[in-house]
């Protein structure tokens, strides 16, 4: 199919899905504060001071970001990073949000004009400057800092995470002027310095803009495509009876260096005064080293916990199952997390196979 025709199909599809989901949501409101509190505050802080997401209430950020940048960032998100794509909001809601965020700019500042013209510069020079001045924070290929930037009340070396510059969402949203202003002014209140103040000339900055602009957007292992086919649970049939399977499972958990937390019938997990139905038994375990590592990458990984094995007996046959971390990771929009989920998946499969071997 020719590109242009595909493009039309995509646009048509978008129009359909925006229309479809913009229909009267229960909480639809034109109140910017409410929209912000509902959709953004969890990550960017109630007053835009940052948290899981970068701070938005920064004069330097608001001076660099034009409305088109904000609109596209909200709509497209940053695929593969934690920032979600908000396609369920109506255009009016997005505009209301933008006005609300603009309200954080110091009074009297004029907002960034939408500037479409392209900046000219020398990519090769830009590349050398990038390796020297930017790669330490933004990564050699613009892949960004690791983790989500959440404070999570831990000691951290960088208070704000350096965003990925090779991200398709950023590259589609930012104009050359937005990138240039960011490099000229820096972002006071974050580690991003002003490169004018660091002694670069305007021509150096233009070269850097052209270099960043030429980043090949990272091709993402699309979680929608690759993970949606995964089954929701990992399951293995056991050749043993319930007691023997539990016994073998505990040994396999120990052999995988995971700590055993508890074994109980499933109904004890939702009610103390339960009937103790022994046909469904759960064994909870945890690998705290792994968990600690995972929490640094994404503070939301608690949704994968506890590391639980569920044993079921049906018609005298016992099976053991766990959630499939790969299937669940598809809802997180975090490609770094996908890699951890692959690892967790392998650990689960190994334990299940060892126990039912």
């Amino acid at each position, binding site marked *: 199919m020719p590109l242009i025709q595909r493009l039309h199909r995509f646009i048509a599809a978008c129009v359909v899905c925006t229309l479809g989901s913009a229909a009267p949501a229960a909480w639809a409101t034109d109140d910017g504060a409410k929209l912000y509190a509902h959709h953004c505050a969890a990550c960017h802080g*109630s007053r835009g001071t940052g948290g899981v997401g970068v701070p938005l209430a920064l004069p330097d950020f608001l001076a660099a970001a034009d409305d088109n940048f904000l609109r596209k960032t909200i709509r*497209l998100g940053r695929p593969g990073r934690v920032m979600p794509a908000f396609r369920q909001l109506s255009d009016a809601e997005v505009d209301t949000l933008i006005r609300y965020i603009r309200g954080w700019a110091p009074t009297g500042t004029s907002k960034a004009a939408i500037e479409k013209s392209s900046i000219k510069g020398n990519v090769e020079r830009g590349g050398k400057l990038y390796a020297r001045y930017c790669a330490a924070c933004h990564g050699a290929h613009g892949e960004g800092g690791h983790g989500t930037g959440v404070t999570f009340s831990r000691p951290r070396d960088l208070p704000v995470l350096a965003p990925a510059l090779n991200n398709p969402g950023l590259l589609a949203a930012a104009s050359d002027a937005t990138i240039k202003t960011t490099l000229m002014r820096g972002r006071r209140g974050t580690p991003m310095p002003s490169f004018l103040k660091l002694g670069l000339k305007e021509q150096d900055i233009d070269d850097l803009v052209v270099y960043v602009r030429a980043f090949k957007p990272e091709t993402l292992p699309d979680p929608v495509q690759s993970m949606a086919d995964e089954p*929701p649970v990992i399951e293995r049939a056991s050749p043993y009876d319930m007691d023997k399977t539990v016994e073998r499972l505990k040994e396999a958990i120990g052999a995988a260096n995971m700590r055993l937390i508890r074994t109980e019938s499933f109904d004890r997990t939702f009610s103390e005064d339960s009937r103790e139905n022994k046909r469904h038994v759960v064994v909870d375990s945890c690998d705290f080293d792994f968990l600690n590592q995972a929490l640094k990458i994404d503070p939301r990984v608690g949704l994968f916990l506890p590391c639980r094995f569920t044993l079921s007996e049906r018609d005298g046959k016992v099976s053991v199952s766990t959630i499939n971390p790969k299937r669940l990771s598809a809802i997180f929009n975090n490609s770094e997390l996908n890699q951890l989920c692959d690892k967790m998946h392998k650990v689960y499969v190994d334990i299940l196979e060892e126990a039912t071997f």
Partner: protein
Amino acid sequence: MKFRALRHIFFPWLAAMLLALPARADELLMVRAERPFADAINDLQIAIQDHGYKVARIQRVDVGLASGGYATAEYRLVFFGKPEEMREIEDRYPELLPYLPLKIVIFAEGNSALALAYNPAILQGFFKIDPLQSRFQRWEKDIREILDQFAAQ
């Protein structure tokens, strides 16, 4: 020249491509409460009970992490369900058990607390159990309300 083409054709095309991916922001529900953790977790339990669910257990992940030598802020899992509903599913749809009982993750971030859950509506996509579809929808409605109640005040 090369970069012009990139700007005028490639980036708009990229934007259209990205927009065509299915929306996902709603599969994960997360809210912030501007209160110290101790108050927030208390309010969360009240909100859960107000919606007719029983809090079955609170797992203190932070305590486990600390015993492993890791410094961390409060991080807990709150498990809940309606016992008769859980029993029915246990008997009739045991394939769902790895995803039950329902849970909300709550953790401290400075002076506020964040609570999150996955949208139970994803379970219909996972398991395609038609008789349970309206149940999943009710869970979704309840969890959204619980989180809203938690974030308000």
